[in-house]
């Protein structure tokens, strides 16, 4: 039995709860017989993958749901073996090239060529082409993206590519221009509420709207997270009575704790304490950019209006540097020190002005 996230995931375009305009558009495209390459982008948990699966079903019929999952080993030029998981049906194949790390180019090249050079042999198939879904397209390396762009044109007759990304900013322009861009925005509160009511109805219980609101507050437009939280809530207090504590991911709570520490005291000793906490977060494999972002948002929430922009400005700069660099903790700490300095300066100035 799967989790609710999967169990109650809509299977067809008609079942989707929100973004109806997008659904119609997709339906029309699937019917037109002239299906383009596509790029779905939008925030995490907005429903990109759900829409992709629905579109596939619209294209090929229920046959796409017969999935086969296996692993494939690719050999890099340096004779290293790279394992990649493939999810495929008779009509499509789904890969996550970022699993191969810096060798994603090899995966893209070999796999795409192989698929593109074989024609669909199933005469009953609705479409002549196969679809390749590339997940996490924004973490593709430059080389892999370059490898993709020629393939996309050359093998158009046998293959369509659907890219799925959080943002288009890290995709190179040639790829963007070859795709039809589909933005899947995060659902609004009402839409989320309706989805959650639907899920709870299917699961056989009534969700009080207040509890739903609380969950939505915390989820930040991430429907997948909201449904996971809903399930956790239902598991932990099965009768949904009394005051409900909405589960927050622990790393988030911890990040907030760090932010509070930064604001409450600025001293070398505190820098060391914060460093310990940052190490703890990093050791739990929380991506450093997420750490920086979460702490920064919390800090900004709690400080005076005047220095908010400054803090965010520096957070952005240090995030860029962190991406370039390799030792994340240096950059995180540098930002912490910077924030402490800004905060202290701000207070110092305030004091001075009141003296004047």
């Amino acid at each position, binding site marked *: *039995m799967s989790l609710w996230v999967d169990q109650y995931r809509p299977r067809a375009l008609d079942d989707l709860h929100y973004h109806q305009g997008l659904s119609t558009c997709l339906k029309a495209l699937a019917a037109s017989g002239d299906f383009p390459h596509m790029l779905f982008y939008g925030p995490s948990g907005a429903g990109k993958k759900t829409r992709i699966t629905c579109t596939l079903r619209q294209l090929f019929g229920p046959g796409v749901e017969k999935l086969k999952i296996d692993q494939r080993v690719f050999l890099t030029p340096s004779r290293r073996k790279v394992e990649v998981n493939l999810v495929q049906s008779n009509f499509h194949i789904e890969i996550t090239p*970022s699993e191969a790390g810096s060798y994603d180019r090899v995966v893209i090249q070999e796999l795409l060529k192989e698929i593109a050079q074989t024609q669909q042999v199933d005469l009953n198939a609705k479409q002549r082409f196969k679809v390749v879904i590339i997940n996490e397209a924004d973490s593709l390396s430059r080389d892999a993206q370059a490898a993709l762009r020629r393939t996309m044109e050359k093998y158009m007759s046998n293959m369509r590519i659907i890219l799925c990304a959080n943002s288009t900013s890290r995709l190179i322009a040639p790829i963007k221009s070859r795709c039809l861009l589909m933005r899947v925005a995060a659902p609004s509160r009402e839409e989320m509420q309706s989805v959650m009511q639907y899920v709870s109805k299917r699961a056989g219980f009534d969700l009080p709207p207040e509890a739903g609101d609380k969950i939505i507050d915390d989820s930040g437009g991430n429907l997948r997270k909201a449904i996971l939280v809903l399930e956790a809530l239902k598991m932990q207090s099965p009768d949904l009575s009394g005051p409900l504590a909405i589960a927050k*991911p622990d790393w988030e709570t911890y990040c907030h704790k760090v932010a509070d520490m930064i604001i409450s005291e600025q001293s070398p000793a505190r820098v060391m304490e914060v460093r310990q906490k940052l190490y703890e977060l990093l050791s*739990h494999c929380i991506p450093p950019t997420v750490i920086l972002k979460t702490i920064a948002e919390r800090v900004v929430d709690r400080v005076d209006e005047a220095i908010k922009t400054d803090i965010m400005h520096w957070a952005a700069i240090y995030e860029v540097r962190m991406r370039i660099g390799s030792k994340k903790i240096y950059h995180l700490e540098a930002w912490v*020190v910077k924030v402490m300095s800004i905060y202290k300066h701000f207070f110092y100035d305030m004091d001075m002005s009141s003296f004047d």
Partner: protein
Amino acid sequence: MVSATSFVPNGLLSFSNVANILPDENEAPVAGPSSPRTPAPTTFGPPVEASLPATKSSAERALQELVDDIDVLKDMESFLDVGGTNASTSLPLEPPMFKSNGLLSSINSKNSLSDPFIWTGLLSDSLSSQDDDLPQVSEAFSIPHAVSKSTASFPSFDQSTSKFNLKARTFDGRTIFIRRKHKPSPDTRKTASLSTRGMGNLLDVPIHRLLDDISREQAMELSQRQRPSHTKHDVGHILWVDRYRPQRFTDLMGNERVAREILSWVKQWDWCVFGKSKERKRPRNGDENVDFEDEYHRPKEKILLLSGPPGLGKTTMTHVIARQAGYEVVEINASDARSGQIVDDRIRPTLESGSTVGSSKPVLVVIDEIDGATGAGENTSNFIYKLIQLTFDKPRRKVRAGQQWDPNAKRPILRPIICICNDINASSLAKLRLHAYQIRLQKPADVHTVKRLRQVCELEGLQTDTRALSALVGIARGDLRGCINTLQFIKARREVVTEDVIRKATVGMKEAEMSVISVLTDLFSPLSKRRVKELGMGDEEESRYVGRLSRVVDSCGRDSSIAIGCFSHYANLRQHDADFSRYQKANEWLMTFDRFSAAMYAEGEFALSQYLPYTLVPFYPLFQERGGPRVERDQSDWENMQTVKANEEIYKSLGRGLQTASTRLGGDFRHLVHTPIMQLEFAPLINRIISPPLRPVNSQVIKPEERALLSRLVQIMTRLELRFVQERAEDGQLTYRLDPPIDVFVTYDGKRTADIAVSRYAVRHLVAQEVDAELTALQTDIIEKGKKGKHANMSDKTSKARTDDQSSEPSSARPTKRARTEEVDIADRPPTDFFGRPITSFAGAVGSTDNKVVEKKYRVAYKFIEGNSAAVRKPIKVEAFL
């Protein structure tokens, strides 16, 4: 063989005493002052106890002076003789040795200094080359020849001998200087001494002194024979380091205690190596180290690990000591391959055979520069690991009658091993340190080094003064090899050594190979006053730190460790930094460092590497502080790395569980595997999903809503391959542990979050049981499907599941066929089944399916299906299937 009498030096022996007991690798045992000397070559009386060292040396000195006086007379005489004839004459006692000289015609003939170690003295400063070989007076006068100090200690320049510059006049009034060099030939000396004895002068000299003389002569002889015959080559081609390398134990300088310690360790092997017949006289100080449990009486640690900075003479010392103790040295150093295989291929055979080919001496294996060997990892085939294994080999039990002699059985090592390294803390040696007897060689006091250098300079005719030499020693930090090399370098250009010359010559030499800690100390604290003086820097020079520190950082070569060290240390400093400006600057530099190194490693821009040291130097102006907190090795970064690795593994196994789940359920969980989603959303929330508040009651009396909860929990856990594994804690209590341990993802700072109650043992027990039952059920499911064919099945099932979903049936307990039977089984479980073990229920399930088969009278063909080993085996007769 030799020296089983085991001279174990204790601290009481004085240096000069050791001189007397030079080893004798041929026959004579090494004898301490108290031990009898057994094979005396001559027909002397009974063994005589040697007198006390102090009195003896003073007596020797007296004798020496006497001999010297006679030397003068003899010189005069021979000179007159030579001067008169102006031709080469030979004295009756020493025909081959006497040569006429060029000096009489005041021509400097070429230097025929044949052997650097037989140095006889009368060398004047004005002339650096000479070649006179005059006969030795003592021989000419038939006086027992006493080669006291000049042989016992390294090339000596006794004050007593240096005053014998002889001045004389020839017939025609020319003034000449007479110098003398004697080249002792063993043969002549022997005859000389024998003849003296024959002449009845025996009573002049106490017998013990004669005995000492004899043993000393023998030692001389041996050492001469052993000495590599580089005398034939041009002297200028030999490095001074080699030329003045100590040859004998008494030549060793510096920390005598260390040398003795090593020697005594080597001596502990005597019982094992040289035979067990000789008994120890009495237990000595060093004896508690000997492990008498050991059949072979070997020392407890079979390996000696000698460490110390380069250039102090570790290798030389081991060689000398090994020879002293009567061993043949087999050396393995960095020039040899040092993989684990070498231990098997070279070291073990050498140790087992006990001696090298064509030699009667036992071997001693010296592994030089062992810190460069492989050994850091956990790999069992690395060098260090194998070496340690070597020492563990137990003595073989006695071969019983009728038992086959096993040639492959490992024999214990019976020969000592000495390992030499520079850095005792090298990670590759971590394992070895536990099993080795560690000796650390410190640099000797500067005075000793200076003295030795002065001797070398004088021998080489290099003018120098103490100040220059101590400056050199200070810069080199006691590195004797470096000092001697520098001197040779200077000598190649000029004759005089002054402080200035030294400064110029040593510009690049200092600070070779420093540890990370010492580099960090340099970065965070200013130079000590003493060091400033040693380096001879002025105030201005001292304040110029960039060049100096960047060289220091560069020479260490481990930039990233230094950067981490800087990072972990800077916030520890006491200095007050009100607005964090210095912290910000420091962090800017660290980030620059990080970006450089990232560019280097990610994009191959290795040209940047030369700038890396400069990014770390600014820590000096920012944070330097006299007497600040000491830099300590900070482990937190490394520990963090280890935790990250461990947690990544857990994520991986969780991911694998998700993969299998998605394979079974038609790709349901696959979207949760992706990197940020799993860490940020799935991992924390699945922990909450799988810990519902259950009461620990028997599964039979459970409430229906709780049963639904339980069954859902069990379903999820089995799908994701999460299990509770029973474990016994250290205090003997049984616990259930989650496997894979994904609860670490809700554990921060060692504490679980408050909103997840730790389920009690009984609850986990209940869940674990149910999970096991479910797993076995799944297995049978798969077996059943396997019969029909995997593919048809999966699609069949998924599509069925989908239609179920579509029809929006309240499917919190959507029962598959198998699940239904399972539930029935649980319900029908006979009450006698007290423990409610899954096995019985499963057995029932098997029984029921079997019954069905029997009823329908199918023909059954059984086929073994690979990979299903969890099935419960039960003996069933074949009739049951037919």
